[in-house]
């Protein structure tokens, strides 16, 4: 049994196989959640994602399909579908990367924090780090970033939340925390940086 910490959630995994994609996420404290033994790495990764996506809404959080960049100790989350450029930006600013595929988000106190996750991506996070979220950018090519109206922002974020089949209570908690998220965090749409 090994215990890992992802998004400040302790997950015990009962497996004898080496789980290299969780490197950097080890923790030794008692655990909250248990993931069943699954030998296949892809299935195991998927199972942990599913467990977390259903667990986090009950603990003021969610998983967001996004890349994360750590700039001046603040997290910038880049959302967008395949081909939107998430990985491209992480490749350009690899030293700032918190991951290029899935970020955890949780509310602690009155602030929202981004968590790196081991789920890859071309550039899965190498370290288990968290940072307060500065802003979210919905990637759109050749467009100067514009702040989205809150209702549009909520829809765009919702489209990028990792949702597995769950129950009404989990879905309701997810919508509740997303509403709070949108009220606190600004969401922009456009191209965030000048590409060299």
């Amino acid at each position, binding site marked *: 049994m090994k215990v890992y910490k992802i998004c400040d959630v302790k997950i015990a995994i009962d497996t004898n196989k080496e789980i290299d994609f969780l490197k950097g996420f080890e923790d030794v404290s008692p655990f909250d959640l248990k993931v069943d033994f699954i030998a296949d790495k892809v299935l195991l990764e998927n199972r942990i994602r599913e467990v977390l996506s259903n667990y986090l809404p009950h603990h003021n959080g969610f998983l967001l399909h996004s890349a994360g960049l750590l700039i001046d100790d603040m997290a910038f989350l880049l959302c967008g579908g395949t081909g939107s450029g998430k990985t491209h930006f992480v490749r350009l600013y690899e030293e700032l990367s918190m991951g290029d595929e899935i970020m955890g988000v949780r509310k602690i106190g009155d602030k929202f924090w981004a968590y790196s996750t081991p789920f890859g991506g071309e550039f899965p996070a190498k370290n288990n780090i968290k940072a307060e979220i500065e802003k979210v950018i919905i990637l759109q090519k050749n467009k100067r970033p514009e702040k989205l*109206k*809150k*209702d549009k922002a*909520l*829809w765009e974020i*919702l*489209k990028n939340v990792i*949702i*597995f*089949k*769950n*129950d*009404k*209570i*989990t*879905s*309701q908690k*997810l*919508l*509740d925390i*997303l*509403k709070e998220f*949108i009220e606190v965090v600004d969401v922009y749409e456009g191209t965030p940086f000048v590409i060299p």
Partner: protein
Amino acid sequence: MKEHLSLSPDTVIKRSENIAWQKFEDKVFIITPDDSMLHMLNETGTRIWEIIEKPKKISEIVEEILKEYDVTKEKAEQSVKRFISELIKKGICEISA
């Protein structure tokens, strides 16, 4: 196909119980957990959503819409039926027994 549901003015409509929703500004965001689908209602859809907070007949919904929007009764009835059919199809609303 449920697309051509026969909704009469006396058909009573209610919100489905197994959905999660949240109103934000003038829109309603809905998750149907059975299929993990996301839905967003526009301003008019949100108004209809509010009207059916308690089960309502189609005719009652149309009446409310006529009070608030500049539209003919025929057009309002047609639009309400089409919208409600769509919500039923997506599992967001149901016909009350």
